[in-house]
């Protein structure tokens, strides 16, 4: 069951990647449709095989085999604790992503539109990227307590940068000839923003959201590592403490799957909006 889930997501990601790439790899795949369909399956089987072989050489607390990891996941699903951990982590990551994206818009729009705002705010935004969040997160816990709020904040901070950079780049990507067109048609600034600049920025904004969406899981886990009594980060920490390496790997796999899920959801929204048609 678990392997089935891994497989499904792996296939959809490689599709997502294939639609983006235009290199020789795609041409080869186009010539061998069967190869393209089964390639992810084959690489997955190979991966599990190598993992299994390697695990035979080491004791389970160093490298447990795929079977014992799968067993752990099933066990944690059965007693309901995995669902609680997933729900907890998502309750931090999703609001964190939304908060970070809103902040990115609130700052990105004025920076893109006003040279003064650009000069006032840009240094802080670039500097913010240099902040080692793992080191700073404890400060946030001191300031805001160790509850949900601080963890959402850590997520929002990590998610903020890739989104704000893309919002700014996107809003600045409007072709000058289209600006001239809107000016010649007497468009108001609001009309120019909503009917031209914002739609023209959507491919960039979605690129930022895709990166931010996967980073939001890292933000949530970072918060949980520092202080938590539930959540996937807490589960992994617990596994580490008990030398239950199978539990640690089960946690990591779950996080990867959820990140892929968030990525795919954003990608679906992008397709629903037909953003790919934009390419100007």
């Amino acid at each position, binding site marked *: 069951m678990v392997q089935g889930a891994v497989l499904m997501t792996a296939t959809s990601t490689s599709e997502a990647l294939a639609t983006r790439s235009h290199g020789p790899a795609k041409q080869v795949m186009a010539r061998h449709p069967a190869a393209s369909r089964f390639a992810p399956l084959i690489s997955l089987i190979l991966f599990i095989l190598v993992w299994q072989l390697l695990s035979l050489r080491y004791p389970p607390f160093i490298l447990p085999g795929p079977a014992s990891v799968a067993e752990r996941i099933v066990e944690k699903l059965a007693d309901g604790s995995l669902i609680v951990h997933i729900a907890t982590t998502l309750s931090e990551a999703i609001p964190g992503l939304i908060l970070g994206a809103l902040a990115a818009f609130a700052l990105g729009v004025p920076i893109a539109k006003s040279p003064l705002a650009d000069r006032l705010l840009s240094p802080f935004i670039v500097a913010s990227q240099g902040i080692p969040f793992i080191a700073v997160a404890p400060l946030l816990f001191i300031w805001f307590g160790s509850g949900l709020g601080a963890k959402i904040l850590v997520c929002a901070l990590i998610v903020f940068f890739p989104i704000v950079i893309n919002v700014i780049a996107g809003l600045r990507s409007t*072709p000058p*000839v289209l600006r001239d*067109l809107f000016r*010649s048609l*007497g468009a*108001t600034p609001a009309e120019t923003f909503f*009917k031209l600049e914002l739609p023209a920025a959507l491919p960039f904004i979605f690129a930022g959201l895709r990166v931010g969406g996967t980073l939001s899981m890292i933000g949530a886990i970072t918060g949980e590592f520092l202080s938590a009594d539930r959540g996937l980060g807490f589960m992994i920490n617990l596994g580490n403490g008990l030398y239950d390496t199978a539990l640690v790997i089960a946690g990591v796999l779950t996080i990867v799957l959820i990140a892929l899920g968030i990525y795919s959801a954003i990608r679906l929204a992008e397709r629903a909006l037909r953003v790919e*048609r934009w390419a100007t």
Partner: protein
Amino acid sequence: MLIADHISHTYPNGVEALRDFSLHVSRGQFVAIVGPSGCGKSTLLRILAGLIQPSAGDVWLDGERITQPSPRIGLMFQDAALLPWRTVEQNIRLPLELGRKTTWRGNGNSEIGDWRSSDAQSLISSSIADLIHLVGLSGFERAYPRELSGGMAQRVALARALITHPPVLLLDEPFGALDAMTRESLTDSVEDILRETGTTAVMVTHSIAEAVFLADQIVVCSPRPGSVVGSVHVGLPRPRAWAMESWPEFGALVGHVRELLTQPTPTT
């Protein structure tokens, strides 16, 4: 009547684009401006459109000074400048949704106050359908720009420029990026449509043949800073056809314009 009165323009970076350029275009006339690259032709067109303010001189349209973009002046660029997320129909509708929407006049007669009213909407829809037919894009109403060829995209741009029934249309090398065959069929359509709608037009172009084919009057300008070198009247009958290209008159006009273009320019 469109008048450019002793226009000079120097860009903030010190480049002098135009010097004392004057132009008189009567109602319904087609004037082509021909000149070497960088003679300030595009600058002139942007000034006529009210997109930039000249350093000196004024632009007048029917006795009214043009200082900013006016709903009475339509524009067509070398790039079709279509919004990729809108269909052909929605692109043509765009001008009606922006600032000037309240001044939209049905077929040039009746003023429509609220363009959102159902009366106005059905009028607009039929007007768009007529235009799509006029520019020869029937069947492509719901196509997206990426599905169109360069010539078809320019046809959409033409329809979009005409949807507000502007008395004046400015064309900035609108056929420059097209292949020869597409050029011929599109210039043919433009000539027909502007003649039928009685639109006054000013076009900037590199192509002498295109200018002779479309214009009533050709103004030749000098290298930068652009100023008027001479003016050629084109007396060819309308409707024009590309078959006229082999007429001796056509050849003589082309020769005359070329001569003006290659005249040595005075050093001062």
